[in-house]
């Protein structure tokens, strides 16, 4: 069972030993989400040769370099556009897009919206650390109001994006958000996401003590955990709360779980339609 398998066995099975150690700082949450993803893959018994990991640029996007799968580490924000080409060319491949919040929702925001709108058959795993970790702690489109980053040193004055909700609105088949401390829910969500057709997305609030925490009086991961406990609200509870009460909170849970046809299926139908319309096929 996945819950019992040691992290060592997961590590030995899936990581590229020659690429270790990772670039991740002590206390960083990205490694936990990587572990969840690998456990989900392991538990589903998916083959390493049927999955391609795609990423953009950022700390989170370095993940595909550490796993022993095919991987495409692309340009900042563009992972899902690259994934579109891979998936439509070889629909047998499963694609995991591992992205940061800045990568997916700022510079890559347009690709995110449109990949979801098309229902591109991809599982997006998004590391939301409320910041640009790799470049040293600038504000991200997810940074909550009042939080500090080097480019809003007096506290963020813009409204944040809710990535998981955006996915629901744009039409994702599955959208969920957890923190890296929701171990079981996190793994189960990724398992669900990997098994579904169409666009599936799992967002994780993930501690970045170095670039984010340090600038917001939370120098260590435990302090960030306590803060997550304060700001997160489970979906069931949130449903009973007034909008004012939810101000500054982050709702966690499963937001969408549906089965609309994915892009691959739609395109296959489109080919059939084209051939019929041209009289090439009955």
């Amino acid at each position: 069972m996945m819950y019992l398998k040691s992290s060592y066995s997961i590590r030995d099975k899936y990581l590229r030993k020659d690429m270790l150690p990772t670039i991740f700082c002590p206390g960083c949450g990205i490694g936990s989400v990587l572990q969840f993803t690998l456990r989900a893959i392991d538990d589903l018994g998916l083959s390493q040769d049927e999955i391609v990991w795609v990423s953009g640029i950022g700390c989170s996007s370095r993940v595909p370099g550490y796993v022993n799968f095919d991987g495409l580490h692309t340009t900042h924000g563009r992972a899902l556009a690259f994934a579109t080409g891979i998936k439509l060319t070889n629909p047998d491949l499963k694609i995991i897009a591992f992205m940061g919040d800045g990568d997916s929702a700022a510079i890559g925001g347009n690709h995110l919206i449109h990949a979801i709108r098309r229902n591109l058959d991809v599982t997006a795993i998004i590391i939301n650390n409320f910041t640009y970790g790799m470049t040293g702690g600038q504000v991200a489109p997810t940074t909550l109001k009042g939080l500090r980053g080097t480019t809003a040193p007096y506290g963020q004055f813009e409204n944040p994006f809710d990535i998981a909700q955006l996915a629901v609105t744009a039409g994702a088949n599955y959208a969920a958000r957890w923190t890296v401390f929701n171990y079981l829910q996190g793994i189960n969500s990724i398992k669900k996401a990997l098994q579904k057709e169409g666009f599936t997305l799992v967002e994780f609030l993930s501690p970045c003590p170095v670039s984010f925490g340090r600038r917001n009086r939370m120098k260590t991961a435990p302090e960030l955990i306590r803060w997550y406990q304060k700001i997160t609200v489970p979906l069931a509870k949130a449903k009973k709360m007034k909008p004012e009460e939810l101000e500054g909170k982050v709702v966690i849970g499963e937001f969408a779980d549906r089965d609309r046809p994915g892009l691959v299926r739609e395109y296959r139908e489109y080919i059939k339609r084209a051939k019929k319309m041209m009289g090439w096929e009955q």
Partner: protein
Amino acid sequence: MRYPFPVGRSDFIQGDEAVARAAILAGCRFYAGYPITPASEIFEAMALYMPLVDGVSIQMEDEIGSIAAVIGASWAGAKAMTATSGPGFSLMQENLGYAVMTETPIVVVNMMRGGPSTGQPTFPAQGDLMQAVWGTHGDHMLIVLSPSTVQEAFDLTIRAFNLAEKYRTPVVILGDAELAHMRERVYIPNPDEIEVVNRKLPANEDEAKLPFGDPHGDGVPPMPIFGRGYRTYVTGLTHDESGHPRTVEPEVQQKLIGRIFRKILDHKDEIISYETFELDDAEIAIVSTGIVSRSAIRAVKMLRERGVRAGLLKLSTVWPFDFEVIEELAEQVRKIYVPEMNLGQLYHLVREGANGKAEVELIAKIGGEVHTPMEIVERVVG
């Protein structure tokens, strides 16, 4: 296999249409694009044809996404292409560099229009020559082709795919608004009349482990396609032969970029193509590329009628550039004229090639009209 257009005979078609048909005959099965004048007709032809040949044609949210999807498709094993014009070509630059760095075979068509910015959407220009060569950041090497007739647009598109596959590199085709929309008679060959080159695949596990190595000594590593069990990692970061990021060792960068240059430059003679016209006894030479070459040929004839021994060197390859051939030409002729639809781009390459051995004069023209033959003649006879 059945084609969605007639093969083995001539047809009267636009430049854009010729590019699309050639791409399909060259084996292209993935097209991603974003509409833009004057390249939209390439996309529209692909949209019509691709589903019928079990290929993909998809409209992306912008040109950044288009070239990204094309690169992804290439790693999944497809021959893939996108087409655009100035504004879209500018958006593609970052990922064009990514294709150089990751040695991804792709074809990018830029049907040039007047710029900068939105400029003259419906008028031809040659203002993107240097951008095609140097537009993406960092030291890089790629191949740039430039057709002057609809037939050449067809032929060079097939060649572009073959070069991309053979050298694992992006290839840019520079057309222009005139060529894109002009209709001419084109011979569309039967598939068995066409030489189609496919990328080298790893012959064994050892080769697959070094997707950025040089196992054959020609600078071109075999390409391990995704999904075939090779577990390849591809990154735009500076990487070693196995593909691992190695960003702080100067030697790794030197070796990688050195090989990316070498794999093209060592095969320059095979890549570069040009045509000559009346050059044997010429004392005046015209050097041109693309659409202006049509006026240049006519100008040579008119000059000959006037007793001026003029000739033409028409370049079908803009990059890599054949500096040696220009130097030889400069040793032969008294003066070289460079007509181009910009304020001087090819001119600088020709001057460098001429190396002071002949005078080089630019005949610049912008605004959206191709030089008339007379405009060239008048400059030569003064």
